[in-house]
Structures are given as C-alpha cells and as structure tokens.
C-alpha cells in the first residue's frame, strides 16, 4: 500500500491540508454549468438563426467563441474551487491542453466532416455530402501520387544534408581559430525567411540570363544553364535551396552532441594512437548515434512540411516535378477552391505521416537498443 503511494506521489510533494467547504464546491459547479448553459443558448440561437427559423441572432459565430472562452475560464477557476490545492496544480497544464484541444481537435473533427463533402467555396451551392467520392477522385489523381513520390525524394535528400552537416559540425568542433565567427555565419541561412530565400536564391541568383550562379555554370562549361526547365534539375534545385536553409539546424544539433562527447575517451584513443578516421568510425560516430538519429528525425519532420519555397519559386512545375504534398494541396485549393477535396488529401497525408513516423521512430529505437 505504502509502495503504491510512493509511486503515485508527485515529484514535488507537499502536504497541504486544505478544507473546502461544500458551499464553495457547489459554487464552483454552478459556475461551470451556468457558463455552459450560456454557451448552449447562444449556440442554439445562432443555429436557429442560420436555419432561418427565428429572425434574431448574431452576424457571425463570434459570440459563441466568447462564451466558449468564458466557459473554459470557468472550468479552470472551478478546479481550484472544487479541488483546492490539487486544482491549482492542474491549472499549470490546463491552459495549454485546453488551447490545443480548441484549436486542433475541433478543426480536425470539422475537417474530417468536410473531407467527405463536395464543397466549393466559390460556388453558391454550399456543401453537399458526397460520401467517398473525394476518395475515389484521389485514387485516380496522378498529381497527388506524384507529389507523394516527390516527398520520398525530398526525404532521401535529408541523408546528403546530414552528411554535409556532420562534416561541418566536426570541423567546427576541431581546433580552429575564429570559431565564434563561423558559428554565427553558419547560423544565418536558417534565420532567413523562406520567402526571402525564394527570391534571393530562386528568382535572382538562379536567373538564367544574368544570375551569378548561371554565370558561374556557364564559366564551368554548361552552355545553357536552366535550373527549372527539366524535371530532375528543377527538383535538385529545390532540394539544394531547402538544404541551404536547414543545414544550419542540423549543424547546431550535431555540434551540441559533439561538445558533449566524453573527453577522456577521446584522449585515451589518441594516446593509443588511433588515427582520425578510425577514431571517427569506432568512437565518435557510435557515441553520436542517438544525437544523429534525433537530428534526422527532427529534420524529416520539418521536411514533411516543405512548401513555401516551392509555392513561390516553381509553383510545383515543371509538370508537377517539384510539387510537395502541401504545395499541391494549396494549388488545388487556390485554383479550384475545392475545400472538401483538399481537406481529404491533407487528411490522407496526415495518416501517411503518422504511419511513417511511427515506423521510423520504432526503427530508430530498435537500432539504438541494439547499438547500446
């Protein structure tokens, strides 16, 4: 019995006897229910008004939002009234949980519903439930599958980025002068907005006629340097631009790992006469494995969101060769304003991501266990 108590105990444990009178408890409950009641009334009025059953109501749903916020505050306050000290502790995570539920879960449920409708924002018909039609449309949409295939290429490019970042992190960690300077400079690309990068690099430097990169390519002997006309080169260009922005993130994470390496082990290996390559292969890389894998996973998470530079620089072209899933869905929405179909595509993407990440993380964990 006492052992169970020990486990259930909070890490920060204080005996705080607090007597809460039944009156206070009742007041707390009344507070929650009355605000909930208010919210329901506003909601019902608005629904009836929208259905044109009654002729008074609000211009939009915002009053419902306000009453929802009021209700949420009432719940939080009533926790303290009803549970005392325990409730005060709940108050630490309550705002964040409530916030995420309101802004993620509600829209997701709503999105799940609209993904089974044919809803064109520009047409006057409003939404129509059309069951699995969107799904069948997706199955026969070559551009969606093409964008998924592109995502695989983009994710594989992470490995190359990782190799470059690891090399640079190793160099930054070696005995060099001006480390502070290099660290600041290497950080800068990450700070730049993808929009600015799209223009600075994608539109300006890669300009075929007079961009410096094109001039350089011509000097190297490539007579007609075009970076966005053939599918393969266009995809490679987008990969490079994305890599340019995100390699700093990987450098920082790997450098943090390298700086935390146990110095004694490295010294011992040096005394034993290990050369740099064997030291890297047998000591640094194995110890760095957890950090490396974390870095890769985080980089892949960011890669899965890749969209901005593609939307701005190529808009998915030529022929969808550079499309990421996000940029494709945005075009689907912009061109045809079909919210229902676009939402379904994004939900399928989410499910694929969840499956992929689960497998990836399980694989990573197993690898780490075997390594240690």
């Amino acid at each position, binding site marked *: 019995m006492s052992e169970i108590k020990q486990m259930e105990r909070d*890490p920060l444990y*204080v005996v705080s006897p607090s007597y809460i009178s039944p009156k206070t408890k009742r007041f707390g409950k009344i507070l929650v229910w009355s605000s909930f009641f208010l919210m329901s009334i506003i909601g019902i009025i608005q629904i009836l008004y929208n259905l044109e059953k009654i002729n008074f109501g609000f211009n939009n749903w915002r009053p419902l939002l306000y009453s929802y916020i009021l209700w949420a505050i009432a719940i939080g306050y009533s926790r303290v009234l009803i549970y005392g000290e325990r409730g005060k502790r709940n108050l630490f995570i309550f*705002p964040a949980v409530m916030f*995420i539920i309101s802004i*993620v879960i509600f829209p997701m449920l709503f999105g799940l519903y609209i993904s089974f409708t044919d809803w064109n924002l520009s047409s006057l018909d409003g939404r129509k439930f059309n069951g699995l039609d969107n799904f069948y449309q997706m199955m026969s949409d070559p551009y969606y599958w093409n964008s998924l295939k592109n995502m695989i290429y983009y994710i594989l490019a992470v490995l190359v980025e990782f190799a470059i970042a690891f090399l640079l992190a190793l*160099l930054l960690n070696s005995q060099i002068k001006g480390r502070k300077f290099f660290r600041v400079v290497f950080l800068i690309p990450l700070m730049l907005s993808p929009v600015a990068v799209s223009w*600075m690099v994608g539109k300006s430097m890669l300009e075929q006629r007079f961009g410096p990169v094109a001039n350089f390519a011509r000097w190297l002997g490539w007579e007609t340097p075009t970076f966005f006309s053939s599918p393969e080169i266009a995809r490679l260009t987008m990969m490079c631009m994305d890599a340019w922005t995100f390699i700093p993130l990987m450098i920082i994470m790997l450098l*943090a790992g390298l700086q935390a390496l146990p110095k004694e082990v490295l010294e011992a290996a040096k005394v034993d006469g290990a050369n740099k390559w064997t030291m890297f292969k047998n000591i640094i890389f194995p110890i760095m494995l957890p950090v490396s894998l974390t870095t890769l996973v985080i980089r892949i998470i960011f890669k899965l*969101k890749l969209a901005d530079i593609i939307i701005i620089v190529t808009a998915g072209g030529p022929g969808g060769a550079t499309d990421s899933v996000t940029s494709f869905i945005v075009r689907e929405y912009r061109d045809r304003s079909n919210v229902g179909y676009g939402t379904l595509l994004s939900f399928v993407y989410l499910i694929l991501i969840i499956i992929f990440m689960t497998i990836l993380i399980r694989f990573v964990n197993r690898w780490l266990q075997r390594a240690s």
Partner: protein
Amino acid sequence: MVAKGFIMKKEFFEKTLIYGILLLWTFICLFPIYWTATTSFKTAASVTQGLLIPWLDFEPAWKGWKNLGLSPDTIFTESNPREEFLARFFNTAFISSTASALAVIMGSFAAYGLSRFNYKFGFMRNPDISFFFLSQLILPPVVLALPVLVLYRELDLLDTHIGMILIYTLTVLPIVIWIMRDQFNAVPIELEEAALVDGATVWSGFFKIVFPIVLPGIASAFILCLILCWNEYFLAALITSTDAKTMPVMVASQISSQSIKWWNMAAISLALCFPLIVAAIFLERYIVKGMAAGAIKG
C-alpha cells in the same frame, strides 16, 4: 628530420583543408545576402549585366531603397510604399511577439506542471500528455489550414490579428514545451520543497524560485518562437488579405507580379531578413541553446 617535416607538411595540409572547407561554406552562406544587398543598389543596366562589385563594376545608387521610401533623400518625404511596408512590419512584429509570448507562458506552465506533478486525465498519464503535446509538432500546417480557414470565416476571424496570433501560438507551443521540459527537469526539486515548507504556495514557489533560474531558457524559447513566427508564410498567405497581412505575404505577392523590379525586390527582401540577421549576430548563444536543447536529451 624528414619524418618531422612530413608531419609538419601533413598538418599544414590538413589545416588548409579545414579552413578551405569552412571558408567555402562561409561563402555559400553569405553570398546570397551579399548579392541581394548589392542588387538593391543597382540600376537596371547593371542588374542585367550581372555585375558583382560596387564602385568597381558599377556605381551604386539608392534605387531600391528610394522606391521603398527608405533612401536618404526620400526618408523625410511622404511615401506610400514606406507606409505600406511599415504597416506590414508592425503587423509582423505584433503578431509574432504576442503569439510567442502566449506560447511561452502557456508552454512553460505546462512543462513545469509535467516535470513536477503527476497528472491523470482519464486514461492519460504524464507521458501520454507529453506525447499529446509533442505530437503536434508532426502535424503539417496544411492539415489544419483548410478547416481553420473555413472556421475562421464563420467566426469572422479571417484577416484579423487575433486569428493569426491564435494559430501562430499553436504552431510554436509544442516547441516551447519541448525546450522548457528539459530546462525544468534540470532544476533541483529540493529548492522548491524548501520554499514550500517555509509556507510558499505552489504558484509563488514557481514565480519566486524556479522562474529566475530558467529565465535564460525561457528567453531562448521566446527568441526561437519569434523567428519561426516572423518567417511563417504558408498560414499567413491563407488567412490574411489586407488588415493583418504580414511581411512575408507582402514580399511573396510582389515576387509573383509580372514586371520584376530587381532593385526593389532586393531591398524589400533584405528588409524582411535584416532584423533576423541582426538577431543571429547578437543572440546566437540563445538561439543555439534553444535548438540544441532537444538534441542531447532526445
């Protein structure tokens, strides 16, 4: 003697290689910024010739900055582009700083709660709640974008500051929780226990004792959020149109317009990046700390 010379030579070769690679990457990092900065001072002719070095290749003019109303001779005169630019600048600054502050406040509380108390919400225990928070990182913005867009239309939140702040807070909240959890775990619990025995409440213990210790961590989380919000384009492009339009959206809309005024675009892109380049130079320590936090523990 020969062997020593050989070693010296090898070491010299190695050093050259290391500095060579580092300088090459420095060049790769800085050249786009240099190119943009010089382009903003070029005339049409010197842009199309792809000239590189000011004063040597071409005579710099305040071309791009003049159009933006930020050159020396236009800065005190009235200028519509400047008004527009400043309005967008303040929108971006206001939205991103408010969203970051909100995220940091909520995220720090949540992270502190998770590191100090055991919670139970139905079947969810602490690890589950942590996972619930962190799993939001994986959620791609496009999944939320369309439903939120439609919901915002109904709530009349489209193109408002509040709407933008809410969605930005959401995107950075998991990152704050992720960083702050490690920060709080590193603070010994005994400190607060002593204070609690002396009669402090849980909340006053948090503010008086733990908060000052983790302040650097909070600062780096805040800066990281600020950067992410400042640069965010995708959601802003969908949600805003006029009132709450942010700088990235403005710059992007000018990119796609037909006649590209190179010097103008260069000036405006540089203005978008400038605050963050300054931040990188002066706050490098905090930014790196925030980003490295997850790597070692993870």
